[in-house]
């Protein structure tokens, strides 16, 4: 149907346009904003293709994840208001080189798919695949769409690799929390007064303390 092509072109143009804006813009938060729009347009493409699960996943993980990126962008770079990032010429060149080679790689991969260029089994075979998340979940326990369940070859499910990756992620998260914690020894907590510190009472460390210029004129 022509409407699908029109909508596809619309969403694709939005995704590409905002992706270009990410590169062109020099303000951190605007970049993140354009990235959000570009990723949302990509999820629109998924919804258009009937892949609701992947589309919602895109919204949840990538668009939602950009939120954290945005917050960290503000927190870690905001020395003054509305930071502008101006890359040097060598950085520009390097990034351009990397981006172009990536584009060439992806384009050649895309054009080498036989079903898309009219050769090989036409996309009609793909249309017949059931369009729900049920086969995806069944794939986890070993009943895969791409295999014949009545054949004798062993059916390897995705569940074990999936669980291993999940546990791995959990370990990484615990490790990150362990590394980022405040280092408090058993003794130092009990020395705190019940109401917390009074900043004026704390003796300054002579190595890190700022020189007290303010007191010199009065002395």
């Amino acid at each position, binding site marked *: 149907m022509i409407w699908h092509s029109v909508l596809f072109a619309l969403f694709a143009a939005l995704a590409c346009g905002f992706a270009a804006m990410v590169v062109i813009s020099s303000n951190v938060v605007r970049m993140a904003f354009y990235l959000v729009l570009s990723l949302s347009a990509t999820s629109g493409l998924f919804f258009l293709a009937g892949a609701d699960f992947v589309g919602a996943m895109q*919204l949840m993980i990538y668009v939602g994840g950009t*939120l954290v990126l945005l917050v960290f962008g503000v927190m870690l770079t905001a020395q003054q208001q509305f930071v502008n990032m101006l890359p040097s010429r060598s950085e520009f060149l390097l990034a351009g080189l990397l981006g172009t080679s990536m584009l060439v790689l992806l384009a050649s991969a895309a054009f080498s798919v036989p079903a898309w260029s009219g050769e090989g089994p036409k996309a009609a075979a793909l249309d017949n695949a059931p369009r729900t998340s049920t086969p995806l979940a069944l794939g986890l326990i070993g009943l895969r769409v791409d295999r014949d369940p009545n054949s004798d070859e062993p059916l390897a499910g995705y569940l074990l690799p999936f669980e291993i990756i999940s546990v791995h992620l959990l370990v990484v998260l615990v490790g990150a929390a362990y590394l980022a914690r405040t280092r408090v020894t058993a003794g130092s907590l009990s020395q705190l007064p019940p109401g917390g510190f009074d900043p004026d009472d704390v003796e300054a460390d002579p190595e890190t303390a700022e020189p007290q210029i303010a007191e010199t004129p009065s002395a």
Partner: protein
Amino acid sequence: MAPTINWALDLLVGWAGLSVAPDAAIGYVLAALLQVAIILNLAAAGALVFIWLERKVAGRIQDRLGPTRVGGRFGWLQTLADGLKLLSKEDLMPTSADPLLFRVAPYIGMAAAVAAFVALPFAGAPHPFVAQHLDVGVFFVLAVLGLEVFSIILAGYSSASKWSLFGAMREAAQVVSYEVPLGLCAVVPVMLAGSMDLVAIGDVQRGGIWNWHVFNDPFTLVIFAVYFTCATASVNRAPFDLAEAESELVGGFHTEYSGLRWSFFFMAEYTSMLLVSLLAAILFLGAWHFPLPLGLTGDGWLGSVMGANVASYFGNLLGLLCLMTKGVLSVIVMMWVRWSMPRLRIDQVMTTCLKYCTPLAAVCFLGATAWQAAFPGGLLWRPPAPYVEMTNDEARMTKKEDAPSISSFVIRASSFKPEAHQ
């Protein structure tokens, strides 16, 4: 819906000797416009009613009358007066603000709140009242709900005001934390129903109040309480409204906003309040089903009197009424909580989430799983799940006779014996 519109159009232009194909584009465009109009008007009318209701509830809780004059006896046109006042206010923007983000921020929140309604069903089988029937409805609604926080963070950042930025950062920390227990709570009804489809989740709770997920077992009762707390926090309502905190941050993220743009933030807030309330009703409170099995559906006694199609449509209308009643009641509970509880401190908000809600949700999830394994059919009578027709028109049209359907796949899965392959 689109084929129905095309069929009606075909009937209409048939007098002039023209015809409309059942898959003509005009049906799709009209169906989309109609659904968008209904959803937008639900959001707008909802905000109109809820703002008035908020004033009334606040008044009653504080031993006042609330609005009494505008529009007659109960002051029911108060929101319209508010709207006129907001329209006539001067539209201000700080000179040091980021103009693009400052302007665009209110609309993002509104768009996210309204977009989630696209996948929210208002009545169930066999022809659900839903704009786009997704088989991962729960997931979609939660994903879109999480996008609303962008508007608050962008508003806070682009205002170039420290109060706004403080509010935005608090909101970011709060929403990112509360998404964890919220997701854990939403998983439990998904597990009980065996589906992420909101229509299917609603329809397994048919047949009476004892089949509602909230009363399925003691664990789901706790899960519902945790869900309600987290939902209140995720839509930024008191006692979790640290992002505004007018006593410390002036107005929080909307300090620099005025007039119509300011009102968009509040339209978004009331719309998402209704959204999480309707989601709570669908996930836990029996969705569109009446507490007692009255049989007012196509397969009940009404179906044999009026004919199955008319009866199921009539039943869906009643179900819509039932769902909206449940949603509005839980919005009122949110207002009641807002005017009864003091605002939490940021560390208390984090403690509530990480030390109470998340472990409680995790433990109750395990408990509900064990209960489901012990009593898979529930304790009391449960009617069989009805047949739900997918409204994904495009999928229906492209379906071929020889294509393996989903049901055949599931049947193969259920007859699949692992030992045969060893």
